[in-house]
């Protein structure tokens, strides 16, 4: 299981410093909630973890981030391998311009995932015959598996080859989840994954995260304090680009140390 260590991380866009000297060890196999007011650098911190920040112009990153002991900002890091290990779930679940099936199969295809190998790794699949299915039949099974894992299978099983863009936004978010799960990541970064959803879809998504945390490290950015309380096992509080406080959820919410944290939890600042 991946361990993420952030050491003296600073990020700036042009002359504007977004994150300042962040030092943090992220525990694994749990839900880590990054909270803080809008514009405090939550998303930037999240996107720095799988180098999605690289896609922005004028961005400068100093310090280092170690994933399993390797500095991901070193020159010999293969970002495609990193992004396979550290998956990303966006705020707005853009489906890729293809069918529902192809959206889920996209990741395994580009990474050349060995379907039979992936199938054998899936919990509960011990049937030799199933595992030996490769090629098209194997991919069908794989897509079904991840759609089930994301809680979307029953709603789409009869129209797998319909355009993904036709799904409702709640379904699109679960499709995005299936898509990120399909690349077999160890860590899932989720950027306010329920902010575009209606309350029912949001609840569904939260339930899914609680199930998934058994097998994945989930780092979720949220500006909803109650969501952080419901989901988070470990809380990271950012304010104006500075890491103010972090700790296990129970301790963080019941006995906050910093004055800013107290003010934020009580609703005095937001």
């Amino acid at each position: 299981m991946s361990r993420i260590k952030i050491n003296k991380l600073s990020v700036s866009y042009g002359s504007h410093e977004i994150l300042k000297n962040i030092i943090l060890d992220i525990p694994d196999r749990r839900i880590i909630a990054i909270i803080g007011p809008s514009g405090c650098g939550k998303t930037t911190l999240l996107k720095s973890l799988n180098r999605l920040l690289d896609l922005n112009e004028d961005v400068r990153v100093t310090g280092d981030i170690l994933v399993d002991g390797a500095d991901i900002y070193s020159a010999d890091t293969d970002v495609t391998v990193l992004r396979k290990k550290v998956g990303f779930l966006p705020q707005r679940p853009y489906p890729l311009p293809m069918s529902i099936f192809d959206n889920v199969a996209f990741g395994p295809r580009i990474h050349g995932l060995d379907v039979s190998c992936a199938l054998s790794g899936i919990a509960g699949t011990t049937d030799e015959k199933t595992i030996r299915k490769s090629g098209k039949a194997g991919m069908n099974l794989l897509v079904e598996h991840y759609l089930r894992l994301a809680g979307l299978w029953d709603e789409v099983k009869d129209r797998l080859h319909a355009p993904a863009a036709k799904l409702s936004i709640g379904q699109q978010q679960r499709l995005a989840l299936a898509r990120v799960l399909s690349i077999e990541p160890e860590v899932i970064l989720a950027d306010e994954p329920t902010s575009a959803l209606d309350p029912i879809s949001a609840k569904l998504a939260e339930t899914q995260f609680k199930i998934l945390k058994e097998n994945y490290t989930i780092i979720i950015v949220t500006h909803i304090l109650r969501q952080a309380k419901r989901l988070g096992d470990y809380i990271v509080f950012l304010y104006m680009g500075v890491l103010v406080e972090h700790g296990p959820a129970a301790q963080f919410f019941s006995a906050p140390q910093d004055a800013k944290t107290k003010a934020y939890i009580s609703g005095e600042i937001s």
Partner: protein
Amino acid sequence: MNSRKLEETLFKIFMMASLFLVFLALAGIVLVVAMKGLSALNLSMIMETPKGGYYLGKEGGIANAIIGSLYLMTGATLLSLMISLPVALALQKEYPGKRFCDLTRLVLDILWGTPSIVYGAFGFVMMVYLGLRASLLGGIMVLTLLMIPIMSRAMDEAVRMVPFELKEMSYALGATRFETTIAVVLRQALPGICTGVILAIGRGIGDAASILFTAGYTDDIPTSLLDPVASLPLAVFFQAGTPVPEVQARAFASALILLLIVLVINIIARLLGWRFSKNIVR
């Protein structure tokens, strides 16, 4: 009526009038061309090449120009597509950086605005230099040059409309730039890319000046790339310039055929674009 409401009404009238003018222009062109040309339009006009004395009103048709234009257009469209699509995809900011993109766009825009007679003259000079005479090959090359800026800029706009978040999604899954471009950008931009092809064909097929010196004109259907080739715009031009009324009517009939070809291409492209757009993300 208060002044804001008046403003609203006046502006609406102005817009409606402008729209009406656009429709009127198309209707007027089709009507005049059809009225003057329909009498001369018949099967032999489409099926036959000019016989002796055709330009004095005797028998024959303009199959040479119809087929010539289709040859020219097919060749030039394929060639410019092969060049324009990579240009448009390369103009994504991930590839050469913003400055180089802006410079390339400026160059393409200048080329777009260059009059086609200049392309024709340039092509002619190049052909003389290379020892080529007016031919299908020369015509295709010059039309390709003429079509590239239009096609690549139109495709570039379509590619630029692809939401950044969509590309980010693909990169986030561990896709490379190439995989993202082929699997995501190309699919999402496909309807716009079709439009780009149509715009370029529209300009290419109707252009007379650029192929006047480079493709030449002949009464025969070319059998090799090095033969001269006739074309519809030049057929219209030459026939309209004769003093014989029957031949002038044939000029309008030729124009009508050209219009119909453009119409058919447009309809096909719309249908393709509509088919390709079912997967795109709005």
